[in-house]
């Protein structure tokens, strides 16, 4: 069951986005944070959300914001796209020649001007999604299905329905 996070957890989430990516708390206003397992979701804080959550077996709400990995927060690509223009720190700009390698999931050797850990990757000045900046370099954390759709040119089945 998806449940609202505690006020202290909500504060922790706000501080993470501010500290790691420079996203101001105002960008997360109007969102309610819900958790199940290791995933935190961001849902519009609309009237009736709580009633809906307790009335039905809910598969998902809003978009996935963060996941807990080894005690650390991992931002989702969906969240980085949502906040795109507000992300100012721990951003790696990909050059045109490295995009395909990155999308194929190969490690891009550094150095990169970003802290170790999860970073936002930008291409042509716009956020593309999440990557892991480790000792070996930069590795894509983009959703596999999205990348497959991009490389194949076929949107996931659902167009024109």
């Amino acid at each position, binding site marked *: 069951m998806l449940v609202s996070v505690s006020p202290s957890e909500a504060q922790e989430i706000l501080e993470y986005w501010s500290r790691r990516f420079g996203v101001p708390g105002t960008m997360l206003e109007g969102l309610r944070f819900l958790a199940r397992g290791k995933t935190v979701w961001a849902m*519009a804080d609309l009237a009736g*959300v709580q009633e*809906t959550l307790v009335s039905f077996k*809910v598969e*998902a709400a809003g*978009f996935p914001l963060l996941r807990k990995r080894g005690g650390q927060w991992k931002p989702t690509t969906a969240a980085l796209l949502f906040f795109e223009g507000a992300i100012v720190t721990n951003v790696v700009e990909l050059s045109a020649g490295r995009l395909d390698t990155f999308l194929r999931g190969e490690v891009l050797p550094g150095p990169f001007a970003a802290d170790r850990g999860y970073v936002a990757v930008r291409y042509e000045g716009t956020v593309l999604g999440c990557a892991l900046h480790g000792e070996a370099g930069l590795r894509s954390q983009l959703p596999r299905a999205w990348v497959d759709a*991009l490389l194949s040119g076929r*949107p996931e089945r*659902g167009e024109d*329905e």
Partner: protein
Amino acid sequence: MRSSPQGSDMVPAFERYRDIIPDFSAFLKAVEIRPPTHIRVNTLRVEAEKFRQAMAEKGYPLAPVAEIPEAFRWESAENPGSTLEYFRGRYQVQGLTSMLPALILDAQAREHLLDLCAAPGGKATYLAQLTRNQALIVANDVSHRRIGILRSHSDRLGITSIIVTRYRGQSFPMRMPFARILLDPPCSAEGTYRVGARPPLTGDPEVSRRLQRLQQMLVTHALKLLRPGGTVVYSTCTYAPEENEAVLHPALEEGRAELVPIATPFPHAPGLESWKGHRFHPSLTLAARFYPHLVNSWGFFIARLRKPE
């Protein structure tokens, strides 16, 4: 694997509609032409005209659709799913007529909405866009796999107002009333049979009759889930009267719902009053039948129903 249909292969299957589709020869010509691809700009992320200009600069020309500001015809030879802008959730690939049910539902901010057969999510995410993420939308579907696709689209588009559930539509729990419901049930999808698009029709009316039973159960249940005075938009991408007028007829005849006129700038034919000896509720002429020779997209049937107070 069956090959894609080639023009005249489809004629026998559509022949039974000769008397109900206006300008039938123009219809047959239209289904022999590959339909254009349309996209819907995600105005939660980007303003439509700015997006059009930016895409033109990147070499992806888009032709405006006058009737829907956020809709464009995809003019590039490249597949619309192959761009970084698609990946970034700036647009959704969606048939032009497939956009109409969400528009016709006319949902408002702060309302509680239900999309009963929502996956893969084109209409539900459009509802979220139209209401600026300010209406609570329960997007339900029975298929785990298709829900995965719905969630993927919703995440990519930055939708914050959708709650996803997985129930059989005809037994969705009656725990809260909804102001508006979108019901786009499984159908024979005849409207998507255009050259190069889908395999040809089976021509077997039993397929439609089996689907009809499910569709009627879904309509009955949707009306129960609706608050008095609320709205259901029923849509299919099929021409089969068995899955359209015949599905809605009992609810109208028994007074469980009344049909409301549809406001749409797109040319269409009225719903049918009769079909092969069956008479339908006269108000069904307020429903709309969209044909590919009238609107160059998929064939669609759309009806707007109101639950009496």
